[in-house]
């Protein structure tokens, strides 16, 4: 299975997936930490995270997959939502809570 297939399987296999640097308990980057915190505040229970620092292929592959050059990246029901700035904006407008309630 190539990297793209692996990523696809991950994002479709869980309702909410965050590709990040580090883990929710030990985020290795401020943007990833902020993303985890926002999802936590939204009450997401079944958060699946992937630590891209553990897997160089996924670290590059996820950038190609979404055509998005940075990490973290949030996926809800297999669809790319955005990075940490977009998550923050959507949280402040209430859009993110709605999306997570409806889909996740």
């Amino acid at each position, binding site marked *: 299975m190539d990297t793209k297939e692996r990523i696809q399987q991950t994002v479709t296999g869980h309702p909410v997936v965050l590709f990040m*640097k*580090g883990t929710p308990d030990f985020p*290795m*980057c*401020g*943007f990833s930490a902020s993303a985890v915190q926002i999802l936590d505040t939204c009450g997401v229970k079944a958060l699946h995270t992937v630590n891209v*620092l553990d897997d160089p292929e996924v670290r590059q592959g996820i950038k190609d997959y979404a*055509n*998005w*050059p*940075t990490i973290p990246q949030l996926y809800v029901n297999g669809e790319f*939502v*955005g*990075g*940490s*700035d*977009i998550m923050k*904006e*959507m949280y402040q407008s209430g859009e993110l809570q709605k999306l997570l309630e409806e889909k996740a």
Partner: protein
Amino acid sequence: MNLAAAIHERLETLSPESIDLVDESGQHVGHAGAASGGSHFNLTIVSAQFAGMGTLARHRKIYAVLGPLMQREIHALAIRALTPDEL
């Protein structure tokens, strides 16, 4: 040309009314990502070209314009992309 100047030059193609680019690399010295040498920037850009676009599309447009700079030179970029009406 330094990196900030290169970013400014590329962003000009979006005919921005204003660009506020802050180099925050100093805040990230010593963390894991900073080891690779990339820079951290905080960008606020105002352009009429963003009208009618969602946030995701605006960010994509900026990434597209910055192109190869996003691969290595820019390690992190916080973006606020607004239209003149949204100021």
